[in-house]
Protein backbone atom coordinates (compact mmCIF):
# COMPACT_ATOMS: atom_id res chain seq x y z
CA UNK A 1 0.00 0.00 0.00
CA UNK A 2 1.41 3.41 -0.81
CA UNK A 3 2.02 5.56 2.22
CA UNK A 4 -0.03 8.69 2.88
CA UNK A 5 2.82 10.99 2.04
CA UNK A 6 3.38 9.19 -1.25
CA UNK A 7 -0.24 9.56 -2.23
CA UNK A 8 -0.06 13.24 -1.41
CA UNK A 9 2.97 13.70 -3.64
CA UNK A 10 1.31 11.88 -6.49
CA UNK A 11 -1.77 14.08 -6.18
CA UNK A 12 0.62 16.99 -6.26
CA UNK A 13 2.06 15.62 -9.49
CA UNK A 14 -1.22 15.66 -11.34
CA UNK A 15 -2.21 19.05 -9.90
CA UNK A 16 1.17 20.56 -10.71
CA UNK A 17 1.08 19.14 -14.22
CA UNK A 18 -2.43 20.48 -14.85
CA UNK A 19 -1.49 23.91 -13.50
CA UNK A 20 1.56 24.03 -15.75
CA UNK A 21 -0.46 22.99 -18.79
CA UNK A 22 -3.15 25.58 -18.07
CA UNK A 23 -0.50 28.25 -17.66
CA UNK A 24 0.97 27.31 -21.05
CA UNK A 25 -2.49 27.31 -22.63
CA UNK A 26 -3.17 30.75 -21.15
CA UNK A 27 0.12 32.04 -22.55
CA UNK A 28 -0.85 30.68 -25.96
CA UNK A 29 -4.37 32.09 -25.90
CA UNK A 30 -3.40 35.54 -24.62
CA UNK A 31 -0.14 35.74 -26.58
CA UNK A 32 -0.89 39.14 -28.19
CA UNK A 33 -1.67 40.74 -24.81
CA UNK A 34 1.26 39.31 -22.87
CA UNK A 35 3.91 41.29 -24.62
CA UNK A 36 3.90 44.96 -25.48
CA UNK A 37 6.62 44.29 -28.01
CA UNK A 38 5.69 43.73 -31.65
CA UNK A 39 7.23 40.54 -33.09
CA UNK A 40 9.03 42.37 -35.89
CA UNK A 41 11.30 45.22 -34.92
CA UNK A 42 11.77 48.17 -37.29
CA UNK A 43 15.32 48.71 -36.05
CA UNK A 44 17.01 45.36 -36.58
CA UNK A 45 20.60 46.44 -36.02
CA UNK A 46 19.83 48.23 -32.78
CA UNK A 47 17.83 45.39 -31.26
CA UNK A 48 19.41 42.13 -32.43
CA UNK A 49 21.09 39.64 -30.09
CA UNK A 50 20.09 41.35 -26.87
CA UNK A 51 20.53 39.03 -23.87
CA UNK A 52 17.56 38.23 -21.60
CA UNK A 53 16.35 41.06 -19.32
CA UNK A 54 18.03 43.65 -21.54
CA UNK A 55 16.58 47.00 -22.55
CA UNK A 56 17.16 48.09 -26.14
CA UNK A 57 17.92 51.55 -27.49
CA UNK A 58 14.20 52.32 -27.69
CA UNK A 59 13.80 51.56 -23.99
CA UNK A 60 11.82 48.40 -24.70
CA UNK A 61 12.48 45.70 -22.14
CA UNK A 62 13.05 42.17 -23.51
CA UNK A 63 12.26 39.45 -20.99
CA UNK A 64 14.05 36.68 -22.91
CA UNK A 65 16.23 38.82 -25.16
CA UNK A 66 16.05 39.07 -28.94
CA UNK A 67 17.16 36.91 -31.86
CA UNK A 68 19.24 37.76 -34.92
CA UNK A 69 16.43 39.69 -36.55
CA UNK A 70 15.82 41.71 -33.41
CA UNK A 71 12.61 39.80 -32.67
CA UNK A 72 11.54 39.48 -29.05
CA UNK A 73 12.10 35.85 -28.00
CA UNK A 74 9.38 35.90 -25.34
CA UNK A 75 6.79 37.17 -27.84
CA UNK A 76 7.79 34.52 -30.35
CA UNK A 77 7.72 31.89 -27.64
CA UNK A 78 4.14 32.85 -26.73
CA UNK A 79 3.03 32.80 -30.38
CA UNK A 80 4.96 29.58 -30.92
CA UNK A 81 3.02 28.05 -28.03
CA UNK A 82 -0.13 28.58 -30.10
CA UNK A 83 1.29 26.56 -32.97
CA UNK A 84 2.95 23.86 -30.88
CA UNK A 85 0.07 23.30 -28.45
CA UNK A 86 -2.65 23.34 -31.09
CA UNK A 87 -0.70 21.04 -33.42
CA UNK A 88 -0.18 18.64 -30.50
CA UNK A 89 -3.81 18.79 -29.36
CA UNK A 90 -5.39 18.42 -32.80
CA UNK A 91 -3.01 15.64 -33.83
CA UNK A 92 -3.83 13.71 -30.66
CA UNK A 93 -7.55 14.38 -31.12
CA UNK A 94 -7.28 12.82 -34.59
CA UNK A 95 -5.31 9.80 -33.37
CA UNK A 96 -7.57 9.34 -30.33
CA UNK A 97 -10.73 9.29 -32.45
CA UNK A 98 -9.20 6.77 -34.88
CA UNK A 99 -7.68 4.67 -32.10
CA UNK A 100 -10.79 4.57 -29.90
CA UNK A 101 -13.13 3.73 -32.76
CA UNK A 102 -10.82 0.99 -34.01
CA UNK A 103 -10.35 -0.47 -30.54
CA UNK A 104 -14.00 -0.31 -29.51
CA UNK A 105 -15.25 -1.65 -32.83
CA UNK A 106 -12.84 -4.57 -32.77
CA UNK A 107 -13.48 -5.22 -29.09
CA UNK A 108 -17.27 -5.19 -29.28
CA UNK A 109 -17.68 -7.11 -32.52
CA UNK A 110 -14.82 -9.54 -32.06
CA UNK A 111 -14.29 -12.39 -34.47
CA UNK A 112 -12.89 -11.87 -37.93
CA UNK A 113 -13.25 -8.06 -38.12
CA UNK A 114 -11.34 -7.77 -34.84
CA UNK A 115 -8.63 -10.06 -36.17
CA UNK A 116 -8.25 -7.98 -39.31
CA UNK A 117 -8.34 -4.62 -37.55
CA UNK A 118 -5.91 -5.53 -34.82
CA UNK A 119 -3.64 -7.26 -37.33
CA UNK A 120 -3.54 -4.02 -39.29
CA UNK A 121 -2.89 -2.09 -36.07
CA UNK A 122 0.05 -4.33 -35.22
CA UNK A 123 1.39 -3.86 -38.69
CA UNK A 124 1.10 -0.08 -38.50
CA UNK A 125 2.70 -0.17 -35.05
CA UNK A 126 5.73 -1.96 -36.43
CA UNK A 127 6.47 0.72 -39.04
CA UNK A 128 9.19 3.01 -37.73
CA UNK A 129 7.25 6.22 -37.08
CA UNK A 130 10.02 8.67 -37.76
CA UNK A 131 10.83 7.13 -41.14
CA UNK A 132 7.19 7.55 -42.10
CA UNK A 133 7.15 11.10 -40.71
CA UNK A 134 10.32 11.98 -42.58
CA UNK A 135 8.97 10.59 -45.84
CA UNK A 136 5.54 12.20 -45.58
CA UNK A 137 6.83 15.52 -44.34
CA UNK A 138 9.71 15.74 -46.78
CA UNK A 139 7.83 14.65 -49.86
CA UNK A 140 4.99 17.13 -49.63
CA UNK A 141 5.24 20.86 -49.07
CA UNK A 142 5.68 21.30 -45.31
CA UNK A 143 2.87 23.00 -43.40
CA UNK A 144 1.20 22.88 -40.00
CA UNK A 145 -1.81 21.03 -41.46
CA UNK A 146 0.38 18.35 -43.00
CA UNK A 147 2.19 17.89 -39.69
CA UNK A 148 -1.15 17.49 -37.88
CA UNK A 149 -2.32 14.87 -40.39
CA UNK A 150 0.96 13.00 -40.32
CA UNK A 151 1.16 12.93 -36.53
CA UNK A 152 -2.50 12.02 -36.19
CA UNK A 153 -2.30 9.21 -38.71
CA UNK A 154 0.84 7.70 -37.18
CA UNK A 155 -0.14 7.97 -33.51
CA UNK A 156 -3.43 6.07 -33.18
CA UNK A 157 -2.11 2.51 -32.96
CA UNK A 158 -1.10 2.37 -29.32
CA UNK A 159 -4.46 3.86 -28.28
CA UNK A 160 -6.27 1.30 -30.43
CA UNK A 161 -4.37 -1.54 -28.72
CA UNK A 162 -5.10 -0.13 -25.27
CA UNK A 163 -8.81 0.40 -25.96
CA UNK A 164 -9.15 -3.02 -27.60
CA UNK A 165 -7.65 -4.72 -24.54
CA UNK A 166 -9.87 -2.81 -22.11
CA UNK A 167 -12.97 -3.35 -24.23
CA UNK A 168 -12.36 -7.11 -24.33
CA UNK A 169 -11.94 -7.10 -20.55
CA UNK A 170 -15.12 -5.04 -20.07
CA UNK A 171 -17.12 -7.28 -22.41
CA UNK A 172 -16.46 -10.19 -20.06
CA UNK A 173 -17.66 -8.29 -16.98
CA UNK A 174 -21.04 -9.22 -15.47
CA UNK A 175 -22.62 -5.78 -15.85
CA UNK A 176 -22.02 -5.87 -19.59
CA UNK A 177 -23.45 -9.34 -19.83
CA UNK A 178 -26.40 -8.04 -17.81
CA UNK A 179 -26.88 -5.13 -20.19
CA UNK A 180 -26.80 -7.50 -23.16
CA UNK A 181 -29.28 -9.82 -21.42
CA UNK A 182 -31.60 -6.85 -20.87
CA UNK A 183 -31.57 -6.31 -24.60
CA UNK A 184 -29.21 -3.36 -24.89
CA UNK A 185 -28.15 -2.78 -28.47
CA UNK A 186 -24.53 -2.43 -29.48
CA UNK A 187 -24.81 1.31 -29.69
CA UNK A 188 -26.19 1.67 -26.19
CA UNK A 189 -23.60 -0.80 -24.96
CA UNK A 190 -20.76 1.24 -26.40
CA UNK A 191 -22.07 4.65 -25.36
CA UNK A 192 -23.30 3.77 -21.88
CA UNK A 193 -20.99 0.99 -20.72
CA UNK A 194 -17.84 0.55 -22.78
CA UNK A 195 -16.75 4.16 -23.34
CA UNK A 196 -17.45 5.67 -19.89
CA UNK A 197 -15.46 2.90 -18.22
CA UNK A 198 -12.25 3.63 -20.01
CA UNK A 199 -12.28 7.41 -20.27
CA UNK A 200 -9.57 7.67 -17.65
CA UNK A 201 -7.05 5.40 -19.35
CA UNK A 202 -7.78 6.89 -22.78
CA UNK A 203 -7.29 10.35 -21.31
CA UNK A 204 -4.00 9.26 -19.77
CA UNK A 205 -2.76 7.82 -23.06
CA UNK A 206 -3.94 10.91 -24.96
CA UNK A 207 -2.20 13.29 -22.55
CA UNK A 208 1.03 11.37 -22.96
CA UNK A 209 0.46 11.50 -26.71
CA UNK A 210 0.13 15.30 -26.66
CA UNK A 211 3.63 15.57 -25.20
CA UNK A 212 5.02 13.17 -27.80
CA UNK A 213 3.25 14.93 -30.66
CA UNK A 214 4.57 18.33 -29.59
CA UNK A 215 8.10 16.96 -29.39
CA UNK A 216 7.80 15.32 -32.80
CA UNK A 217 6.32 18.46 -34.34
CA UNK A 218 9.24 20.43 -32.97
CA UNK A 219 11.60 17.78 -34.34
CA UNK A 220 10.12 18.02 -37.82
CA UNK A 221 10.17 21.82 -37.72
CA UNK A 222 13.74 21.62 -36.49
CA UNK A 223 14.70 19.59 -39.56
CA UNK A 224 12.90 22.19 -41.67
CA UNK A 225 10.07 19.79 -42.52
CA UNK A 226 7.35 21.21 -40.28
CA UNK A 227 5.99 24.68 -39.60
CA UNK A 228 7.81 27.08 -41.87
CA UNK A 229 9.41 30.38 -40.83
CA UNK A 230 8.61 33.23 -40.39
CA UNK A 231 5.71 31.67 -38.43
CA UNK A 232 7.11 30.79 -35.02
CA UNK A 233 6.97 27.25 -33.71
CA UNK A 234 9.14 25.96 -30.90
CA UNK A 235 10.86 23.59 -33.28
CA UNK A 236 11.90 26.16 -35.86
CA UNK A 237 12.86 28.52 -33.02
CA UNK A 238 15.30 25.86 -31.77
CA UNK A 239 16.54 25.43 -35.33
CA UNK A 240 17.19 29.15 -35.70
CA UNK A 241 18.83 29.07 -32.28
CA UNK A 242 21.25 26.50 -33.64
CA UNK A 243 22.52 28.99 -36.20
CA UNK A 244 23.18 31.62 -33.56
CA UNK A 245 24.33 29.26 -30.83
CA UNK A 246 27.62 31.10 -30.30
CA UNK A 247 26.44 34.67 -29.81
CA UNK A 248 22.88 34.09 -28.59
CA UNK A 249 22.41 30.74 -26.81
CA UNK A 250 19.13 31.95 -25.23
CA UNK A 251 17.36 31.91 -28.60
CA UNK A 252 17.53 28.11 -28.74
CA UNK A 253 17.44 27.48 -25.00
CA UNK A 254 14.09 29.17 -24.26
CA UNK A 255 11.81 27.17 -26.61
CA UNK A 256 13.54 23.93 -25.55
CA UNK A 257 12.83 24.61 -21.88
CA UNK A 258 9.20 25.39 -22.72
CA UNK A 259 9.01 22.11 -24.65
CA UNK A 260 10.45 20.08 -21.80
CA UNK A 261 8.07 21.72 -19.31
CA UNK A 262 5.04 20.83 -21.44
CA UNK A 263 6.16 17.22 -21.89
CA UNK A 264 6.93 16.84 -18.18
CA UNK A 265 3.50 18.30 -17.32
CA UNK A 266 1.81 15.87 -19.73
CA UNK A 267 3.71 12.93 -18.24
CA UNK A 268 2.79 13.94 -14.68
CA UNK A 269 -0.90 14.27 -15.55
CA UNK A 270 -0.90 10.98 -17.47
CA UNK A 271 0.80 9.06 -14.65
CA UNK A 272 -1.51 10.65 -12.09
CA UNK A 273 -4.53 9.53 -14.12
CA UNK A 274 -3.18 6.02 -14.49
CA UNK A 275 -2.25 5.43 -10.87
CA UNK A 276 -5.65 6.25 -9.38
Amino acid at each position, binding site marked *: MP*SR*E*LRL*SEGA*GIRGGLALLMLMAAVAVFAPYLSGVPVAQPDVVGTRFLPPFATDLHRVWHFLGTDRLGRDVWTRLAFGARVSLSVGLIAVAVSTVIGVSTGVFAGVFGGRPAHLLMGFT*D*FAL*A*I*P*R*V*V*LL*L*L*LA*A*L*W*RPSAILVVCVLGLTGWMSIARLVYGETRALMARPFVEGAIALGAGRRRLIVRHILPNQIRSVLAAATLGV*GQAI*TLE*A*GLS*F*LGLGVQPPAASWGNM*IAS*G*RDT*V*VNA*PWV*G*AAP*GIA*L*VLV*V*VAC*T*LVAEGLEER
Partner: protein
Amino acid sequence: MPASLAVRIFRGIAVVFGVVTLTFLLLQLAPGDPVLRLLGATATPEQIEAQRHALGFDRPVLLQYVEWLGRALHGDLGTSIVLGRPALQVLGQAWPATALLVSLSILLSYPIGILIGVVQGTTRKPRLDTALSVLSVALNALPGYWLGLMLVIVCTYWLRMLPAFGAAGLDADFLSTWDALQDRLRHLILPLTTLTLIGAGGVARFMRGTIRDVSGAPFVVSARAKGLPPSRVIVYHLLRNGLGPVLTLLGLSLPALFSGAVFVEAIFAWPGVGQVLVQAVLARDFPVVMAATTVGAFLVVLGGMLADLGAWWADPRLRTRHAES
Protein backbone atom coordinates in the same frame (compact mmCIF):
# COMPACT_ATOMS: atom_id res chain seq x y z
CA MET B 1 7.24 -21.79 -29.12
CA PRO B 2 8.26 -23.14 -32.57
CA ALA B 3 4.76 -22.53 -33.91
CA SER B 4 4.58 -19.01 -32.52
CA LEU B 5 8.11 -18.37 -33.77
CA ALA B 6 7.00 -19.28 -37.29
CA VAL B 7 4.02 -16.94 -36.94
CA ARG B 8 6.31 -14.17 -35.76
CA ILE B 9 8.73 -14.67 -38.65
CA PHE B 10 5.84 -14.64 -41.09
CA ARG B 11 4.47 -11.48 -39.51
CA GLY B 12 7.90 -9.88 -39.56
CA ILE B 13 8.26 -10.57 -43.27
CA ALA B 14 4.79 -9.13 -43.83
CA VAL B 15 5.75 -5.96 -41.96
CA VAL B 16 8.96 -5.48 -43.96
CA PHE B 17 7.03 -6.11 -47.16
CA GLY B 18 4.33 -3.62 -46.12
CA VAL B 19 6.84 -0.92 -45.22
CA VAL B 20 8.61 -1.38 -48.54
CA THR B 21 5.35 -1.21 -50.50
CA LEU B 22 4.17 1.84 -48.58
CA THR B 23 7.47 3.64 -49.13
CA PHE B 24 7.39 2.82 -52.83
CA LEU B 25 3.83 4.15 -53.15
CA LEU B 26 4.62 7.32 -51.21
CA LEU B 27 7.65 7.97 -53.37
CA GLN B 28 5.52 7.56 -56.50
CA LEU B 29 2.79 9.86 -55.17
CA ALA B 30 5.09 12.57 -53.98
CA PRO B 31 5.90 15.60 -56.07
CA GLY B 32 9.49 16.25 -57.04
CA ASP B 33 11.28 14.49 -59.86
CA PRO B 34 14.73 13.07 -59.11
CA VAL B 35 15.68 13.37 -62.77
CA LEU B 36 15.00 17.11 -62.83
CA ARG B 37 17.13 17.53 -59.73
CA LEU B 38 19.88 15.38 -61.17
CA LEU B 39 20.15 17.18 -64.51
CA GLY B 40 19.49 20.71 -63.32
CA ALA B 41 17.56 23.55 -64.89
CA THR B 42 19.56 23.67 -68.14
CA ALA B 43 18.64 20.18 -69.34
CA THR B 44 16.64 19.91 -72.57
CA PRO B 45 13.38 17.89 -72.61
CA GLU B 46 15.13 15.25 -74.77
CA GLN B 47 17.90 14.80 -72.23
CA ILE B 48 15.37 14.51 -69.41
CA GLU B 49 13.41 11.93 -71.39
CA ALA B 50 16.58 9.96 -72.12
CA GLN B 51 17.61 10.00 -68.49
CA ARG B 52 14.13 8.93 -67.36
CA HIS B 53 14.31 6.08 -69.81
CA ALA B 54 17.77 5.08 -68.64
CA LEU B 55 16.59 4.98 -65.03
CA GLY B 56 13.42 3.10 -65.98
CA PHE B 57 11.07 5.78 -64.66
CA ASP B 58 9.03 5.87 -67.88
CA ARG B 59 7.66 2.40 -67.36
CA PRO B 60 4.37 1.57 -65.55
CA VAL B 61 4.57 1.92 -61.75
CA LEU B 62 3.49 -1.65 -61.13
CA LEU B 63 6.22 -2.98 -63.42
CA GLN B 64 8.83 -0.81 -61.67
CA TYR B 65 7.64 -2.11 -58.32
CA VAL B 66 7.76 -5.78 -59.31
CA GLU B 67 11.17 -5.33 -60.89
CA TRP B 68 12.48 -3.58 -57.79
CA LEU B 69 11.16 -6.40 -55.59
CA GLY B 70 12.72 -9.02 -57.84
CA ARG B 71 16.11 -7.34 -57.72
CA ALA B 72 15.82 -6.71 -53.97
CA LEU B 73 15.23 -10.40 -53.37
CA HIS B 74 18.52 -11.05 -55.13
CA GLY B 75 20.27 -8.58 -52.85
CA ASP B 76 20.40 -5.73 -55.37
CA LEU B 77 18.78 -2.62 -53.89
CA GLY B 78 19.53 -0.37 -56.85
CA THR B 79 22.01 2.38 -57.55
CA SER B 80 21.95 5.83 -56.00
CA ILE B 81 20.76 8.37 -58.56
CA VAL B 82 22.76 11.16 -56.99
CA LEU B 83 25.98 9.36 -56.11
CA GLY B 84 26.02 6.75 -58.85
CA ARG B 85 27.10 4.05 -56.40
CA PRO B 86 25.13 0.98 -55.25
CA ALA B 87 22.62 2.02 -52.56
CA LEU B 88 23.74 -0.82 -50.30
CA GLN B 89 27.31 0.42 -50.51
CA VAL B 90 26.19 3.93 -49.53
CA LEU B 91 24.36 2.49 -46.54
CA GLY B 92 27.18 0.15 -45.71
CA GLN B 93 29.56 3.07 -45.33
CA ALA B 94 27.18 4.92 -43.02
CA TRP B 95 26.00 1.93 -41.03
CA PRO B 96 28.97 1.39 -38.66
CA ALA B 97 28.71 4.95 -37.32
CA THR B 98 25.02 4.55 -36.43
CA ALA B 99 25.50 1.05 -35.07
CA LEU B 100 28.35 2.23 -32.84
CA LEU B 101 26.32 5.15 -31.51
CA VAL B 102 23.11 3.21 -30.89
CA SER B 103 24.70 0.10 -29.39
CA LEU B 104 26.94 2.08 -27.04
CA SER B 105 24.00 4.19 -25.91
CA ILE B 106 21.99 1.02 -25.19
CA LEU B 107 24.92 -0.42 -23.23
CA LEU B 108 25.12 2.74 -21.13
CA SER B 109 21.51 3.86 -20.79
CA TYR B 110 20.03 0.50 -19.72
CA PRO B 111 22.27 -0.06 -16.67
CA ILE B 112 21.85 3.59 -15.61
CA GLY B 113 18.09 3.50 -16.11
CA ILE B 114 17.74 0.13 -14.36
CA LEU B 115 19.75 1.42 -11.41
CA ILE B 116 17.58 4.54 -11.04
CA GLY B 117 14.41 2.48 -11.43
CA VAL B 118 15.51 -0.07 -8.81
CA VAL B 119 16.41 2.68 -6.33
CA GLN B 120 12.99 4.26 -6.90
CA GLY B 121 11.14 0.98 -6.72
CA THR B 122 12.73 -0.16 -3.47
CA THR B 123 13.33 3.06 -1.55
CA ARG B 124 11.30 3.86 1.55
CA LYS B 125 11.88 7.59 1.13
CA PRO B 126 9.05 9.16 -0.86
CA ARG B 127 11.08 12.34 -1.36
CA LEU B 128 13.92 10.45 -3.05
CA ASP B 129 11.38 8.65 -5.24
CA THR B 130 9.74 11.93 -6.24
CA ALA B 131 13.08 13.61 -6.93
CA LEU B 132 14.24 10.73 -9.13
CA SER B 133 10.83 10.68 -10.83
CA VAL B 134 11.15 14.33 -11.76
CA LEU B 135 14.67 13.65 -13.03
CA SER B 136 13.73 10.64 -15.15
CA VAL B 137 10.55 12.22 -16.53
CA ALA B 138 12.49 15.35 -17.47
CA LEU B 139 15.30 13.33 -19.06
CA ASN B 140 12.81 11.31 -21.05
CA ALA B 141 11.04 14.49 -22.16
CA LEU B 142 14.19 16.12 -23.51
CA PRO B 143 14.14 16.36 -27.28
CA GLY B 144 17.45 14.94 -28.52
CA TYR B 145 18.21 17.75 -30.93
CA TRP B 146 17.71 20.35 -28.20
CA LEU B 147 19.71 18.53 -25.54
CA GLY B 148 22.46 18.11 -28.13
CA LEU B 149 22.41 21.83 -28.85
CA MET B 150 22.63 22.71 -25.15
CA LEU B 151 25.51 20.27 -24.66
CA VAL B 152 27.30 21.91 -27.58
CA ILE B 153 26.79 25.37 -26.04
CA VAL B 154 28.17 24.24 -22.69
CA CYS B 155 30.90 21.77 -23.64
CA THR B 156 32.13 23.33 -26.87
CA TYR B 157 31.57 27.05 -26.66
CA TRP B 158 31.76 27.71 -22.94
CA LEU B 159 34.13 25.04 -21.64
CA ARG B 160 35.93 24.54 -24.98
CA MET B 161 36.44 20.90 -24.13
CA LEU B 162 34.75 18.78 -26.79
CA PRO B 163 34.28 18.99 -30.55
CA ALA B 164 30.77 19.94 -31.67
CA PHE B 165 30.29 17.83 -34.77
CA GLY B 166 31.52 15.07 -37.03
CA ALA B 167 32.94 11.66 -36.17
CA ALA B 168 36.59 12.64 -36.46
CA GLY B 169 38.67 15.81 -36.66
CA LEU B 170 39.86 17.30 -39.95
CA ASP B 171 43.41 16.17 -39.18
CA ALA B 172 42.34 12.64 -38.19
CA ASP B 173 44.23 11.02 -41.08
CA PHE B 174 47.55 12.48 -39.95
CA LEU B 175 47.34 11.45 -36.30
CA SER B 176 49.09 8.48 -34.75
CA THR B 177 46.92 5.50 -33.83
CA TRP B 178 46.58 6.52 -30.19
CA ASP B 179 45.81 10.15 -30.97
CA ALA B 180 43.32 9.13 -33.65
CA LEU B 181 41.52 6.89 -31.18
CA GLN B 182 41.40 9.71 -28.66
CA ASP B 183 40.08 12.03 -31.36
CA ARG B 184 37.35 9.52 -32.20
CA LEU B 185 36.33 9.15 -28.57
CA ARG B 186 36.20 12.90 -28.04
CA HIS B 187 33.87 13.21 -31.04
CA LEU B 188 31.73 10.38 -29.73
CA ILE B 189 31.11 11.83 -26.26
CA LEU B 190 28.45 14.46 -27.01
CA PRO B 191 26.16 12.45 -29.32
CA LEU B 192 26.51 9.43 -27.05
CA THR B 193 25.69 11.46 -23.92
CA THR B 194 22.62 12.90 -25.63
CA LEU B 195 21.19 9.53 -26.65
CA THR B 196 22.14 7.89 -23.35
CA LEU B 197 20.56 10.51 -21.08
CA ILE B 198 17.25 10.41 -22.95
CA GLY B 199 17.22 6.61 -23.07
CA ALA B 200 18.07 6.25 -19.39
CA GLY B 201 15.05 8.37 -18.41
CA GLY B 202 12.66 6.06 -20.25
CA VAL B 203 14.21 2.89 -18.90
CA ALA B 204 14.08 4.26 -15.34
CA ARG B 205 10.34 5.04 -15.63
CA PHE B 206 9.67 1.58 -16.95
CA MET B 207 11.85 -0.22 -14.38
CA ARG B 208 10.26 1.67 -11.49
CA GLY B 209 6.81 0.52 -12.59
CA THR B 210 7.95 -3.08 -13.05
CA ILE B 211 9.62 -3.24 -9.63
CA ARG B 212 6.54 -1.72 -7.99
CA ASP B 213 4.31 -4.29 -9.65
CA VAL B 214 6.45 -7.18 -8.46
CA SER B 215 7.19 -5.79 -4.98
CA GLY B 216 3.79 -6.79 -3.62
CA ALA B 217 3.89 -10.31 -5.05
CA PRO B 218 3.71 -13.14 -2.47
CA PHE B 219 7.11 -14.59 -3.40
CA VAL B 220 8.80 -11.26 -2.72
CA VAL B 221 6.99 -10.83 0.59
CA SER B 222 7.98 -14.33 1.66
CA ALA B 223 11.57 -13.79 0.51
CA ARG B 224 11.71 -10.72 2.71
CA ALA B 225 9.92 -12.48 5.56
CA LYS B 226 12.37 -15.38 5.63
CA GLY B 227 15.10 -12.83 6.26
CA LEU B 228 16.92 -12.59 2.93
CA PRO B 229 19.12 -9.51 2.82
CA PRO B 230 17.54 -6.75 0.69
CA SER B 231 20.31 -6.93 -1.91
CA ARG B 232 19.55 -10.61 -2.52
CA VAL B 233 15.84 -9.90 -2.84
CA ILE B 234 16.60 -7.17 -5.34
CA VAL B 235 18.98 -9.22 -7.48
CA TYR B 236 17.27 -12.59 -7.41
CA HIS B 237 13.61 -11.70 -7.12
CA LEU B 238 12.96 -8.19 -8.33
CA LEU B 239 15.58 -7.79 -11.06
CA ARG B 240 15.11 -11.28 -12.39
CA ASN B 241 11.41 -10.55 -12.85
CA GLY B 242 12.05 -7.18 -14.37
CA LEU B 243 14.45 -8.59 -16.95
CA GLY B 244 11.79 -9.96 -19.31
CA PRO B 245 9.79 -6.72 -19.59
CA VAL B 246 13.00 -4.71 -19.99
CA LEU B 247 14.10 -6.93 -22.88
CA THR B 248 10.67 -6.48 -24.46
CA LEU B 249 11.04 -2.74 -23.96
CA LEU B 250 14.42 -2.88 -25.67
CA GLY B 251 12.85 -4.57 -28.68
CA LEU B 252 9.95 -2.12 -28.82
CA SER B 253 12.23 0.89 -28.42
CA LEU B 254 14.45 0.00 -31.36
CA PRO B 255 12.44 2.12 -33.82
CA ALA B 256 12.53 5.02 -31.35
CA LEU B 257 16.28 4.58 -30.90
CA PHE B 258 16.74 4.61 -34.63
CA SER B 259 14.63 7.75 -34.96
CA GLY B 260 16.37 9.39 -32.03
CA ALA B 261 19.59 8.70 -33.85
CA VAL B 262 18.20 10.48 -36.93
CA PHE B 263 17.80 13.73 -34.97
CA VAL B 264 21.01 13.36 -32.99
CA GLU B 265 22.93 12.61 -36.17
CA ALA B 266 21.43 15.72 -37.74
CA ILE B 267 22.60 18.00 -34.96
CA PHE B 268 26.07 16.52 -34.55
CA ALA B 269 26.63 15.93 -38.28
CA TRP B 270 27.33 12.30 -37.35
CA PRO B 271 27.96 10.44 -40.62
CA GLY B 272 25.38 7.69 -40.04
CA VAL B 273 22.33 6.15 -41.69
CA GLY B 274 20.01 8.88 -40.41
CA GLN B 275 21.99 11.51 -42.28
CA VAL B 276 21.97 9.40 -45.43
CA LEU B 277 18.20 8.95 -45.15
CA VAL B 278 17.43 12.65 -44.60
CA GLN B 279 19.68 13.69 -47.47
CA ALA B 280 18.28 11.02 -49.78
CA VAL B 281 14.71 12.09 -49.01
CA LEU B 282 15.56 15.74 -49.69
CA ALA B 283 17.31 14.88 -52.97
CA ARG B 284 14.55 12.45 -54.05
CA ASP B 285 17.21 9.73 -54.33
CA PHE B 286 14.58 6.98 -54.59
CA PRO B 287 16.85 3.91 -54.57
CA VAL B 288 18.69 5.06 -51.44
CA VAL B 289 15.44 5.92 -49.63
CA MET B 290 14.05 2.50 -50.56
CA ALA B 291 17.21 0.73 -49.49
CA ALA B 292 17.41 2.63 -46.19
CA THR B 293 13.77 1.93 -45.30
CA THR B 294 14.07 -1.72 -46.30
CA VAL B 295 17.19 -2.33 -44.26
CA GLY B 296 15.83 -0.23 -41.38
CA ALA B 297 12.50 -2.08 -41.27
CA PHE B 298 14.30 -5.41 -41.50
CA LEU B 299 16.59 -4.59 -38.59
CA VAL B 300 13.76 -3.24 -36.43
CA VAL B 301 11.70 -6.38 -37.02
CA LEU B 302 14.72 -8.60 -36.36
CA GLY B 303 15.50 -6.69 -33.17
CA GLY B 304 11.93 -7.06 -31.97
CA MET B 305 12.07 -10.80 -32.54
CA LEU B 306 15.39 -11.17 -30.76
CA ALA B 307 14.01 -9.16 -27.83
CA ASP B 308 10.98 -11.45 -27.66
CA LEU B 309 13.25 -14.48 -27.69
CA GLY B 310 15.27 -12.87 -24.92
CA ALA B 311 12.17 -12.25 -22.83
CA TRP B 312 11.10 -15.84 -23.43
CA TRP B 313 14.51 -17.01 -22.24
CA ALA B 314 14.49 -14.72 -19.21
CA ASP B 315 11.00 -15.61 -17.99
CA PRO B 316 10.28 -19.34 -17.64
CA ARG B 317 6.58 -18.58 -17.09
CA LEU B 318 6.24 -17.47 -20.70
CA ARG B 319 7.54 -20.86 -21.79
CA THR B 320 5.06 -22.86 -19.71
CA ARG B 321 2.24 -20.62 -20.84
CA HIS B 322 3.12 -21.40 -24.42
CA ALA B 323 3.34 -25.09 -23.64
CA GLU B 324 -0.14 -25.01 -22.10
CA SER B 325 -1.83 -23.19 -24.94
